[in-house]
């Protein structure tokens, strides 16, 4: 294949001036990090709450949580993003919709992507939390109640501390996924890492250098997350439990 390789392209000035193509990639990386981490916080908060609700007695509360999971887990991520970004402002009352569309477009794209990714991943975290709680022997809950704890206290002091420590490995997968999934935000115009890579292709006609750089950056990012989560896993491991070693 007659391809003209040029790795120095990253050090070239961009046509609008002020920075290099490497600068673009770095600003894309910063956006990817900000988007993934803020969405991860939403996912953890919503996922934990819904995961708890899925296990409580009472049809209404667990029904709401089940509905949330079915809705957000069964619609493709890309479709959800388009709904948040394109459809929602149109079905909101005209005043609110127009006010949202008047704010800085970058901010619109960021918030839409953050909420979308957060709630999508939240549904998956919810299922992890639920399975963590369900994996505990039923006796733990009864023991908590028998000691005079109320149900919320039992969750707070007995069930959740155990459940969260058990589900660290599957949560790591979700944490890795959120970084990779954040690339869909490029489809609504948010200039995150993948979008900056694509932009570099458009401006320089050097697709392979760009895609290789984007791929390696995502791999390094995820390697970092894996190392970090491995530490967390080691620290929070329940002695004597599955995979807990001694």
């Amino acid at each position: 294949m007659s391809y003209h390789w040029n790795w120095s392209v990253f050090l070239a000035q961009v046509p609008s001036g002020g920075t290099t193509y490497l600068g673009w990639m770095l600003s894309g990386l910063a956006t990817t990090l900000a988007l993934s981490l803020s969405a991860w916080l939403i996912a953890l908060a919503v996922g934990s709450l819904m995961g708890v609700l899925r296990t409580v007695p009472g049809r209404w509360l667990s029904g709401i949580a089940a509905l949330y999971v079915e809705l957000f887990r069964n619609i493709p991520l890309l479709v959800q993003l388009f709904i948040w970004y394109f459809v929602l402002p149109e079905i909101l009352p005209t005043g609110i919709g127009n006010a949202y569309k008047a704010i800085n477009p970058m901010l619109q794209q960021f918030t839409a992507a953050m909420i979308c990714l957060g709630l999508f991943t939240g549904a998956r975290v919810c299922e992890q939390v639920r399975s963590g709680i369900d994996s505990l022997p039923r006796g733990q809950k009864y023991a908590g109640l028998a000691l005079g704890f109320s149900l919320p206290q039992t969750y707070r002091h007995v069930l959740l501390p155990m459940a969260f420590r058990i589900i660290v490995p599957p949560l790591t997968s979700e944490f890795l996924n959120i970084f990779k999934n954040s690339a869909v935000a490029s489809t609504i115009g948010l200039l995150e890492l993948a979008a900056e890579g694509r932009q570099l292709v458009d401006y320089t006609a050097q697709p392979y250098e760009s895609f290789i750089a984007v791929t390696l950056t995502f791999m390094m990012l995820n390697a970092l997350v894996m190392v970090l989560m491995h530490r967390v896993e080691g620290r929070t491991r329940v002695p004597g439990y599955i995979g807990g070693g001694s």
Partner: protein
Amino acid sequence: MKSRRLFAAALVCSFVSCPILAQELGGTLKKIKDSNTIALGHRESSIPFSYYDDKQQVVGYSQELMLKVVDAVKADLKLLNLQIKLTPVTSQNRIPLVQNGTVDIECGSTTNNAERQKQVAFSDTIFVIGTRLLVKKSSGIGDFADLAGKNVVTTAGTTSERLIRKLNEDRKMGMNIISAKDHGEAFLTLETGRAAAFMMDDALLAGEMAKARHPADWVIVGTPQSREAYGCMMRKDDPAFKKLVDGALARVMASGEAERIYKKWFMSPIPPKGLNLNFPMSEDVAQIFKHPNDRAFE
């Protein structure tokens, strides 16, 4: 060990261009003859150049010219039942797909420019556009100067994107620039009121307007910020194929066939909605029909 050496070779190749590999895959005409198939690249929503009509058939001005080229290839290679393989391409993947042989020729709405010439070859120019603005008639926007502080949408990966970002920097206009994935999405951004104007190639703007819910609400305004030459894209360093393509295009242009094709796509009702773009032939286009050439404007 062997795989390691192969990897090293690939690595070396990645830093210097490898002429040996180029020769092995070169010779588009031989490839077409050997496989009895020509691989055409087309666009999905570049109205009226190359797009799907309501029956999901690829149609358009560039598509029709490309089929003329196919006829010439058929005649030249004496392949009576040459098979045509259609591959949809996007602004992002069109160059790699031409380079790696998935597509032998792509006629759509691809601008011939100096950077791309480093990677691919271009045929003689098939169309010339100016980059302008699509705005709502009632918006009161008449030219680029009126865009200060407003949201402007453009399509990612186009010359317009580059020009508008530069304009914004140079004149400190404080515009918010949105880069949409494709022309359809950019127009959606405009139509839903997220952006006050859509900057793009004027002929494509006319095409998007034709798709609008109320085409009469929209108008194309502004001094053209650049002129660009559209050409068909082929693999580099394949003079035999390029000569055949240019020859076929020159014949179509000289015989008045090209003018008929122009009128069909720009001056008469076209699918999917049967709207007429009413986009008269510019002096630039008339000139390239008279004197075919493959010069880029930038």
